[in-house]
């Protein structure tokens, strides 16, 4: 390993990258855009959900129930006169859920427990929007149960309450979706963008002939590899810092754990991703092909890495596939640091795994750089 040669290679890479306006634009705008886009995307907060209501009872209890449902803006009750109108609205997608309160609601409620059927409230969800419905379900059931119980309690008709459950969220008590998505966005950007940019860069060099020229110089494959990924790694590390700042200042999401540790781990993961980019470039003839391959590869990577969809909810077999992606582990680590403030000690196994991936990928990439022999 000749340090002068390495320095020469690194210097050139940095010069070329910083002078390419297109690459620089992509490197800055894409991570920021991703942050902003994803930051707003996931909200478990059920808010302003249009709830169709057919109130056949029109009693104080039923009105109270409806008022309570709309109280915090969780649901926006919309009255309908007939059941048919309600159903039509559901089909048209104008309302996301509906409740039908029976005519004897009040009486049944108060008399419940004494030789009377409990009042039956029908709740219909628009299952066409499954995610939405799933989120709404929890809220709605709890609200209805609590409100009804409250109504009874106030009337002194305490028919013996059920068990009271106090639920608290450790980390992210408001269950705000933004920190979750923000911490995942790092994984997305550093997996996707790195692979893309490296692949294109190398393929372009192959097409212009500079790569071949490099192989004829005394530079070794290792030097060429490091001369490529170290500067790119540094550039992306700056990107990470930028993202942390923007996430903090604009979205008000700061890592719970150590920022330095986070940047270090992220930088290492970048190197791993860059290795992957090198491998893709070795198998592509044109830049467009490299991009298409990167995208094709990144789709399952993003979907399965736990970025947006929980891995444990996937079939066993798929979970194993997910574990093969380095991105999965990095996202786990970045979420652990951002949301739970975990430190290097507890994250050791994951970090070791990332290291292993890094060695394997970079080793393979090294082989692809060796002149074709």
């Amino acid at each position, binding site marked *: 390993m000749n340090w002068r040669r390495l320095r020469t290679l690194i210097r050139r890479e940095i010069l070329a990258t910083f002078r390419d306006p297109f690459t620089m634009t992509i490197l800055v705008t894409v991570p920021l855009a991703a942050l902003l886009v994803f930051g707003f995307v996931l909200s478990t907060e059920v808010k302003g959900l249009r709830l169709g209501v057919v109130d056949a009872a029109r009693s104080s209890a039923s009105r109270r129930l409806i008022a309570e449902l709309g109280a915090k803006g969780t649901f926006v009750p919309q009255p309908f006169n007939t059941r048919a109108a309600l159903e039509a609205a559901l089909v048209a997608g104008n309302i996301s859920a509906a409740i039908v309160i029976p005519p004897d609601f009040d009486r049944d409620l108060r008399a419940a427990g004494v030789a009377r059927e409990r009042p039956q*409230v029908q709740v219909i969800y628009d299952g066409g929007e499954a995610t939405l419905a799933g989120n709404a379900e929890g809220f709605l059931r709890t609200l209805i149960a609590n409100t009804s119980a409250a109504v009874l309690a106030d009337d002194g008709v305490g028919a013996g309450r059920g068990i009271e459950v106090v639920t608290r*969220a*450790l980390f992210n008590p408001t269950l705000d979706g933004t920190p979750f998505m923000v911490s995942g966005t790092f994984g997305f950007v550093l997996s996707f963008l790195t692979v893309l940019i490296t692949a294109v860069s190398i393929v372009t060099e192959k097409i212009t002939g500079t790569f071949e020229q490099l192989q004829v110089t005394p530079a070794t494959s290792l030097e060429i590899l490091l001369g490529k990924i170290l500067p790119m790694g540094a550039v992306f590390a700056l990107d990470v810092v930028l993202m942390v700042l923007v996430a903090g200042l604009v979205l008000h999401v700061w890592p719970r754990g150590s920022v330095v540790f986070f940047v270090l781990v992220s930088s290492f993961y970048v190197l791993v991703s860059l290795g992957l980019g090198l491998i893709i470039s070795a198998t592509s003839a044109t830049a467009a092909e490299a991009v298409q391959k990167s995208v094709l590869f990144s789709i*399952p990577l993003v979907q399965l890495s736990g970025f947006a969809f929980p891995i444990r909810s996937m079939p066993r077999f798929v979970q194993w596939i997910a574990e093969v992606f380095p991105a999965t582990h990095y996202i786990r680590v970045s979420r652990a640091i951002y949301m739970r403030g975990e430190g290097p000690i507890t994250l050791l196994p994951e970090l070791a795994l990332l290291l292993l991936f890094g060695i394997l990928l970079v080793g393979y990439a090294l082989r692809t750089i060796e002149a074709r022999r």
Partner: protein
Amino acid sequence: MTGRRRSFWSNVAAVAYKEASLVRHDKALLATVFAQPVMMFLLMGFALSNKPADVRWAVLDQSNTTLSRRLVQEIQATGYFVTPRPVWSHEAGRQLLLQGDALAFLVIPKDFRRNVERGRPQVQVLVDGSDPLQAARVGAYIGEVVARFDLPHAAGAVAGASRPPLAVSAAGPVDMRQRFWFNPTLLDRTFFLAALAGMLLTNLCMSVTSGGLVAERESGTYEQMLALPTTPIELVLGKLVPYVGLSYAVFLFATIAPGVVFGLWPHGSWLALILVTLPFVLASLAVGVFVSTLAHTSAQSVFITVFFILPSFVLSGVMFPYQFMPRGVREVGGLFPLRWYQIALRRIIERGAGLVDVAGPLLALIVLFAVILSAIRWRMKPRLG
């Protein structure tokens, strides 16, 4: 007048024919056309779900009575949870949450049994709020089981006696009958697969056209093309035509595969589906063409396209509910053709709507197409001047 119109269409046809033969030889494109749809179908159909599963949780059962144990069992019986990890202190449970080894931590206090008799039982649940969606649902599931829990009351329940036929022993004061229309078991798969056509077509249309024009510009045939006696509109339409055919092939796959494999056939009108697909495909293709007028190299154009597809997927509502996005963001999402298409798709496929019901989205798509087309015209004008 007729002569001119005939020339228009024959020009379009000529350009279309040339484009089609190019497509046939583009291996990378064909790979994308075949590989991506299958991959996304597999992912959406088999892998992705928001429903909690195999949830790891911990229990600190300080009461340790038949009652408390039954509560734990009932929670586990919901099927969402694995066997809970017993812990012996608050700290131990919190530690598990801290390390991401458990999503929920249930604490049953020591005097649970006595509190039941007194009529004021309470338990505590601590959830890992990192993944708020999971946290909310898991919390709700536990909460629900707890609320439903069959309590033997001091006044009248005798161990082993027949249960009172009425209310108190059952869940809360209200009997909630719950139904999920259009998706009775609330499968996320149904939700995702309904919009599969939208996702695949967006990918296809934008990648395809953005590569095309730029490649021509690079190879020099672009100038050649401009020298032909065709108007820009004829050029653009001619280029788009073969891809429309390809798009419909992909659309058929996206609509039929879920039906064949999962039995998820569209409930609504096929005609509506086919009709609403057209302006969407045209709009997406047009976006691709527009992108290609912006890029100088083919690598650039693919870059730009990819970064247009991304927000399109995220903000349109195919994967994440758009209804909950902040006001401004939601509106921005409306600028993407995919938003309107997925609304129409879900309405028709899941809710069985007809052509009339999707008139709104259909109109929106046509308007978007017209707008993008004029943007293209505006970009191409100086070059032909």
